């Protein structure tokens, strides 16, 4: 084999490898699903608070909603996972990141408040802070600068909600979810569909 031929072959190998490594399978469905579910629950909680309905009822509503949504998310996620035509290390990393983030948010939302560690009104800024972390890391993994930028929105919102807690925290957080989660999820989904070939994978 001549040197030039070897160079050419190596160049082709590197191109294919770089191309394949950039693939991230993210259709944005989880972003949309959780954004909508939690926004609705927040608005319902907000209305309950305005109507002075007991916090226990709100807590029960949250517990039922989160458990049901988690089950739906897991079933749908597993189904979509089976349909994928490629599994990547980046995709696995992304899945682990959001799984860990989800568990953390669940703990902050339920364990933290039930234990009396802090007032329930601070759940929103705490979760907003966690979302900032997961968005930043997700953006890095997927090489999406705009997704990394969203993390600053989450953190800025968290600062505001920490310093100015009120019953309106719930409504503000619902709006944040629509702006920083649901809409980005829709953008990711459109991008995924636009670039979707038979492979079912999209380039980062």
């Amino acid at each position, binding site marked *: *084999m*001549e*040197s030039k031929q*070897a*160079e050419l*072959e*190596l160049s*082709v*190998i590197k191109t*294919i*490898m*770089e*191309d*394949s*490594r950039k*693939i991230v399978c993210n259709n944005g469905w989880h972003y949309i699903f959780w954004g909508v579910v939690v926004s609705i629950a927040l608005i319902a909680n907000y209305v309950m608070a305005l109507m002075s309905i007991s916090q226990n009822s709100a807590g029960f509503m949250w517990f039922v909603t989160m458990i049901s949504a988690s089950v739906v998310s897991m079933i749908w996620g597993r189904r979509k996972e*089976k*349909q*994928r*035509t*490629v*599994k*990547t*290390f980046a*995709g*696995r990393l992304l899945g682990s990141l959001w799984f860990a983030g989800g568990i953390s948010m669940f703990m902050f939302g339920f364990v933290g408040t039930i234990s009396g560690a802090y007032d329930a009104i601070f759940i929103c800024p705490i979760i907003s802070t966690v979302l900032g972390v997961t968005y930043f890391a997700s953006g890095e993994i997927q090489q999406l600068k705009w997704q990394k930028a969203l993390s600053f929105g989450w953190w800025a919102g968290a600062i505001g909600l920490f310093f100015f807690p009120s019953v309106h925290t719930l409504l503000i957080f619902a709006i944040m979810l629509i702006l920083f989660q649901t809409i980005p999820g829709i953008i990711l989904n459109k991008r995924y569909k636009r670039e979707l*070939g*038979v*492979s*079912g*994978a999209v380039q980062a």
Partner: protein
Amino acid sequence: MTDYNYHEIDDVIHSRIRTAIMAVLISVEEAEFTFIREKINATDGNLSVHLKKLEEHNYISVRKEFVDRKPMTRYKITETGRKAFEEYIKKLESIIKK
């Protein structure tokens, strides 16, 4: 002129399509047949022949399943295949350096 010894080149990998297959599989955890086909622009029949050869030499492993009643064939690079491909790349680099 290089003192190239053709015996040192892995014949199993040394083919345009098989090299491309290995390059794809070393970069992902697992890939389905259709994904590989799209990535390297091969026909079904041609790709199948080359995948079979790699499988026979234990460079890749295959898993078949039905998803929503559709057959899916998934491929993964084996440890043997990974080492062989890394060795192949080293050989190419050594040829370039000479």
